[in-house]
């Protein structure tokens, strides 16, 4: 029983990361109708930036906001300079550009900080408490920070004028222009925010998986799975999807372990996590591409 609870708790903690990534993906998808394949590498790069700041002696409460600001600016610049001119370009061109960005971020991180695996400190104090056997302080921290960020973003979009303007720009760009909103800047801001959200995910997960250029690829895959399960056009859905997929990932491994202990037969376990993610992605795309909470869009000939 305790092991099951541990798995659920750790699933939720991982799910928090997937939820953040899924949200970043959905924010960009809803406003620009594109999937940011470079999201994982951008988050990884941000994690390295944070590490560097920490290495230079800055405390966490300086390094993290600085990293978030840096990521925000990079996101805005990418949208304005690289993606905007490709506004009307065919899908393949845009996808190739995303892959190009992926390659640049990945290799730049390797060039600047080398490929050696580095430990990343956790910002959360390491103390023992009642539930320590089931969940660790960093995991609680992951969940709390992620949920906190999500709540902040929710309030921003729902209650502030800028948030409303950004939602309007994403929902109907032409109508947004007709009420005087500068849609191009709204898209850029959206990108900046998405990059910031991604950077938080990267910094939160680095202590767990250790910092190195390859750290985010598999996590991004789970972020995609979460976004698809929840509905890639629904921010709330994507967040729910992230948590669901996080718990699911661990449940599958847990059940596999139980099966092995009971029958001696190893069917599935920790070594198949990426395959499980792939199966989730394919299943959702085949059966219900709009996910649990997303909308189905009709295309007119």
């Amino acid at each position, binding site marked *: 029983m305790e092991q099951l609870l541990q798995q659920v708790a750790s699933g939720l903690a991982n799910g928090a990361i997937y939820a953040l990534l899924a949200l970043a993906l959905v924010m960009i998808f809803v406003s620009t109708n594109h999937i940011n394949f470079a999201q994982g590498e951008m988050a990884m790069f941000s994690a390295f930036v944070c590490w560097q700041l920490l290495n230079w002696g800055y405390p966490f409460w300086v390094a993290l906001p600085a990293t978030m600001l840096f990521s925000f600016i990079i996101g805005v610049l990418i949208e304005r300079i690289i993606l905007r001119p490709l506004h009307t370009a065919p899908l393949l061109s845009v996808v190739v550009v995303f892959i190009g960005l992926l390659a640049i971020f990945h290799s730049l991180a390797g060039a600047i900080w080398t490929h050696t695996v580095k430990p990343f400190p956790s910002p959360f104090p390491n103390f023992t408490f009642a539930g320590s056997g089931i969940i660790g302080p960093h995991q609680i921290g992951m969940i709390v920070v992620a949920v906190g960020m999500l709540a902040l973003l929710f309030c921003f979009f729902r209650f502030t004028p800028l948030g409303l303007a950004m939602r*309007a720009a994403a929902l109907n760009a032409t109508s947004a222009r*007709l009420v005087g909103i*500068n849609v191009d800047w709204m898209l850029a801001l959206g990108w900046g925010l998405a990059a910031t959200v991604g950077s938080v995910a990267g910094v939160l997960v680095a202590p767990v998986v250790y910092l190195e250029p390859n750290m985010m690829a598999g996590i991004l895959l789970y972020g995609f799975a979460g976004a698809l399960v929840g509905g890639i056009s629904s921010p709330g859905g994507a967040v729910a999807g992230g948590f669901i997929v996080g718990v699911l990932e661990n449940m599958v491994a847990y059940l596999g372990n139980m099966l092995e202990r009971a029958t001696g037969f190893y069917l599935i376990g920790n070594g198949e996590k990426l395959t499980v993610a792939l199966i989730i992605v394919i299943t959702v795309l085949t059966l219900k591409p709009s996910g649990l909470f997303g909308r189905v869009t009709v295309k007119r000939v």
Partner: protein
Amino acid sequence: MSNILEVKNLKAYYGPSQALHGISFSLAKGGITTLLGANGAGKTTTLRAICGMVRAEGTVTIDGEPVTGKATESVVRLGVGHVPEGRGTFTELSVEENLRVAAYTRRDKAAAARDLEMVFTYFPRLKERMDQQAGTLSGGEQQMLAISRALMLGPRLMLLDEPSFGLAPLIVQEIFRIMRRINEEAKVSMLLVEQNAALALDLADHAYVLETGRVVMSGTSADVKSDEQIRKSYLGY
């Protein structure tokens, strides 16, 4: 200048094909002018060209200020409220959010609040439906919302594209009555594009008839209404 809108030799293009071949007209401050003509005559294109939504050449001035080549949102910020074809409401946002988003660009928040009250006096039905999702409103209510959203910009000039489209006659009459009130009370000039010529000519003081991207006739509404030949050839009644 007494003209809120001056259009000179306006040409407009959809890609390689030319939709407007150099039209000219003007709208006096406080007046209502209507653009009439058959489908495809270029009426909607004219409104879009004024707002910078299609590639255009020529001169368009809003209260003396030239706007050709400006981005849509810049034209809008000069005080132009465009109620587009198909209403253009944010169907996933609530009525309240639709109205609030239009006030986003306004500096004077107090004036925006007053305008919201004004909108409710014209369209009390909207006040009842504030939290409802805009997409679930009836056609008439959506049209009211679209007009209100334009009003929330505090415009000097409103461009209306086929406000009667797809609505029952009683609702249309109500909306047109309110449009007259808006024009008289809030002093908003209007450029109205309509398929329903009879309705438009009752509301407007001046009319221009368009055919395949050119102005073929212009005059006061009274003149156009009384000219039987024009009515039969161009307006269908």
